[in-house]
């Protein structure tokens, strides 16, 4: 099939607004009667609140209201209701909101927060998930087992474990007994901050007791609506959540973060919009973090390289509240194997309360943590078996007819790992690797990945198409444009489906829950697949409607009519053509009658047949879509400093169909550099009091231009997915997944040193190098 719009490098449709400063983000919005909030933050990781005195703060200039959590009985959460909008009887992480000041200016609010006095009784705290897992750990939620929760998130009473996902395939112990080689290792993926350039912001205004408007920096306006509706027991229809442009999300603005708190405090000053925009420090300490996993893994293989059994335990530091982390925990369990077939699997993933900011979705959603282990283990196994790693990978890749860990049979249309690995090898090994010299060790590493979007079985996307009387189309969607380029790809999909030039398509640029179509949330790299399919369905319905109108007008059967975009033609009579734009508002006949209906249609899509994971054994048809790929890295390591320089990063991803190859490359490169940051630079650290040590750009180092490798390879492999729009599948999170293990495998290649933790620290690497390790292993 040939396409006219799909596959073209259309320039971003949001670029003009963004390059002229016209694009509006939450912090740019000013509203009549608006007031400003600042939050007093806990300075203890874990402490009882004995008393709060707000009397001095209330007397400060400009102050309209001081709100605390005292007496608040609201707990919110989509799966586990365990979080109050402001701390009530105790604080569970440093940076948690204790009181809010609402004032006429941000500065007045800030000054007043300094006058609030809080008496705390510090409690023992715990940061590390393995410590928090122990029976004698400080307990962060005494009422863990009493919280209202949906089924499938079993807590363990009297512990910090709020969720345990167990997934079984075959019999792991039997598998290990049958294996010729069994290897066991432990890994650590630290807590990271998303560090979206736009700090979180939210404005809430209560127009009456039971209706409010919320402007939020969110990937999930409909989840915000749901949570706020539950919090205040008001009709969801009365809540208007408005999502303007988003300055980066990466999962850290999915579910909810600050919105429940802002909605709560704004209720005390009805008819005033209350705005809170986080400082950069607060974005670190008081929104969401990502990752934070300690893992144990054991794999068994035959001497010929056939993988047999895998047992893994993943312990997640999920922070003070569990709702945003619980499904990340489950998702990592789906992919603990990496993209390989094992006959026997036993995987236990634990969501554990710790005294850090709550942990949630972060680009990759449990997959980077799982792949850190699986892709390092493949490397270790290969060396022990004396089989090249790529050969071991090929021998065990999931492919047509193979059965993954959750029990799904892989289809050809899920993608082609073999081709991806070929492409990465071709790019990575194009030139000979420099030989070790006086200054550097050199090495190359590869790693595979697979990714599935984690979601509710009925998580859906909608689209509304309205034809205008000039033949152009308004297409409303609720996929959030957060930088990933969904407005542009959706423009192409709509133009392709409606057979019109892209200039005739206008995708809605922001979302309003009262007018925009329903969208579960913009997560899991799902927009292309789910919103794309919704647009195609709406377009098909619009085309059908146009044909029906023309049939009525021309007295021809619908089957005789052929839609060609601007014209509808007759298949039997070459001379008949009809301008479709005349149908937009319903056709006005020469006799002065209206004929047919206006061309306004809806479409929706959810992935059919997806279930919640099965009880007891986990798994089942719980993964709605798969994307496969491989990544590679070439590095050099300074013998003097231990510093790792990355010379080449490569990815080959089977994306089914590149709707916009330029946009796809942009996602791949951005994601690989995020993986680079995780591998070599980033880590949220806490001091001896449990307070974050590096909540700023100066200490939490991020990749900058100088970190970008000399060479970046992006190969887009296209094995069409029969369920995707024009064959496309999910791709945006994926490049961040396997760069850390690829770099670590390159370090093994260069030095023979096996690493199990990130970020890779030059001093530690140097110490290991000084230990007599040299060249080949």
């Amino acid at each position: 099939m040939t396409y006219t719009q799909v596959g073209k490098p259309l320039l971003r449709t949001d670029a003009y607004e963004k390059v002229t400063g016209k694009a509006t983000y939450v912090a740019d919005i000013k509203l009549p009667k608006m007031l400003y909030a600042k939050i007093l933050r806990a300075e203890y990781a874990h402490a009882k609140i004995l008393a709060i005195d707000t009397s001095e703060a209330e007397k400060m200039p400009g102050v309209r209201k001081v709100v605390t959590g005292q007496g608040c009985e609201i707990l919110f959460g989509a799966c586990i209701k365990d979080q109050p909008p402001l701390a009530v009887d105790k604080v569970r992480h440093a940076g948690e909101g204790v009181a809010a000041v609402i004032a006429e200016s941000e500065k007045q609010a800030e000054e007043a927060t300094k006058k609030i006095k809080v008496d705390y009784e510090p409690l023992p705290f715990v940061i590390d998930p393995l410590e928090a897992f122990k029976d004698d750990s400080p307990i962060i939620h005494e009422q863990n087992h009493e919280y209202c929760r949906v089924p499938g998130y079993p807590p363990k009473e009297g512990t910090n474990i709020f969720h345990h996902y167990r997934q079984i395939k075959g019999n792991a112990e039997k598998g290990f007994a049958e294996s010729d080689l069994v290897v066991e290792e432990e890994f650590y993926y630290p807590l990271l901050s998303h560090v979206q350039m736009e700090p979180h912001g939210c404005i809430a205004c209560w127009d009456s007791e039971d209706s409010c408007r919320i402007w939020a920096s969110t990937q999930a306006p409909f989840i915000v609506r749901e949570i706020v509706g539950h919090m205040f027991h008001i009709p969801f229809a009365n809540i208007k959540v408005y999502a303007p442009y988003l300055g980066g999300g990466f999962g850290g603005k999915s579910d909810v973060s600050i919105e429940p708190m802002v909605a709560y405090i704004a209720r005390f000053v009805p008819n005033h919009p209350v705005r809170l925009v986080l400082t950069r420090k607060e974005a670190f300490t008081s929104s969401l973090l990502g990752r934070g996993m300690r893992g144990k893994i054991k794999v068994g293989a035959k001497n010929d390289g056939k993988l047999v059994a895998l047992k893994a335990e993943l312990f997640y530091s999920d922070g003070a509240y569990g709702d945003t982390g619980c499904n990340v925990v489950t998702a990592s369990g789906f992919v603990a194997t990496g993209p390989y077939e094992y006959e026997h699997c036993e995987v236990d993933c634990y969501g554990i309360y710790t005294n850090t900011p709550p942990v949630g979705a972060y680009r990759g959603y449990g997959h980077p943590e799982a792949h850190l282990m699986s892709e390092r283990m493949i490397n270790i196994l290969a060396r022990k078996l004396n089989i090249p790693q790529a050969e071991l990978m090929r021998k065990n890749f999931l492919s047509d007819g193979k059965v993954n860990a959750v029990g799904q049979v892989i289809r050809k249309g899920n993608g082609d790992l073999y081709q991806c690995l070929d492409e990465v090898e071709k790019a990575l090994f194009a030139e000979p690797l420099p030989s070790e010299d006086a200054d550097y060790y050199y090495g190359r590493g590869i790693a595979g990945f697979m990714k599935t979007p984690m979601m509710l079985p009925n998580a859906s996307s909608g689209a509304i198409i309205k034809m205008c009387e000039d033949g152009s189309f308004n297409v409303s969607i609720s996929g959030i444009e957060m930088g990933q380029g969904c407005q542009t790809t959706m423009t192409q999909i709509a133009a392709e489906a409606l057979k019109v030039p892209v200039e005739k398509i206008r995708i809605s640029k922001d979302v309003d829950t009262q007018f925009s179509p329903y969208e579960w949330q913009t997560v899991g790299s799902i927009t292309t697949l789910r919103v794309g399919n919704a647009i195609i369905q709406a377009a098909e319905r619009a085309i059908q409607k146009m044909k029906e109108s023309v049939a009525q007008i021309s007295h021809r059967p619908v089957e005789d009519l052929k839609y060609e975009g601007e014209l509808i033609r007759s298949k039997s009579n070459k001379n008949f053509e009809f301008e479709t734009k005349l149908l937009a508002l319903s056709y006005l006949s020469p006799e002065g009658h209206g004929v047919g209906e206006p061309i306004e249609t809806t479409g929706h899509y959810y992935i059919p047949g997806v279930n919640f994971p099965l009880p007891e054994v986990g798994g089942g048809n719980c993964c709605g879509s798969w994307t496969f790929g491989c990544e590679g890295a070439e590095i050099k390591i300074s013998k003097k400093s231990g510093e790792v320089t990355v010379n080449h990063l490569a990815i080959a991803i089977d994306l089914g169909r590149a709707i916009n190859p330029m946009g796809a490359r942009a996602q791949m490169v951005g994601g690989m550099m995020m993986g680079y940051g995780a591998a070599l630079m980033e880590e949220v650290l806490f001091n001896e009091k449990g307070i974050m040590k590096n909540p700023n750009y100066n200490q939490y180092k991020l990749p900058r231009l100088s970190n970008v490798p000399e060479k970046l390879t992006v190969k887009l492999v296209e094995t069409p997915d029969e369920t995707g729009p024009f064959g496309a599948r999910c791709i945006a999170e994926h490049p961040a997944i396997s760069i850390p293990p690829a770099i670590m495998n390159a370090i093994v290649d260069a030095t023979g040193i096996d690493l199990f933790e990130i970020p890779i620290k030059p001093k530690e690497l140097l110490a290991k190098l000084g230990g007599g390790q040299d060249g080949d292993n």
Partner: protein
Amino acid sequence: MATTNISITVNGRQHDLLVDEKETLLEVLRDRFDLTGTKNACSYGACGACTVVADNEAVKSCLLKPEKYNGKNILTIEGLADGNNLHPIQDAFIKAGAIQCGFCTPGFVMSLYALFTNNLDASDDEIKAVLEKHICRCTGYEFIWDAAKLAQKMLKER
């Protein structure tokens, strides 16, 4: 709070105003003039998102106090295009695909404007040194680098 009188030209229009002595240029631009194209991402000069041009020099507007911006001629992202005609740097950012979430974009563009205004023959190393002061979390910088090079070429050919 102590206040001070200042005179400032913003995107070609001169203003006299009374500001707080701690009021930053970023606050003046965003809160008083609604020039919200200039972004606040850290407020301590580490990320470059708030960069504007003051007397042809790129400055981090979040750090500048009145004594530093009084009397200056300020150009922000909103003042860069000539009516509907985008400045070549803006055009280059669009064509090279250098924009994703867009929050860092105005800062990058304004820094390059100052660089190329002062030295259109800037070497690759000089361009890199300017871009290094900015953080972008989305793009991985590849297309931003391409945009900078394309902008330089377009400006030379103008």
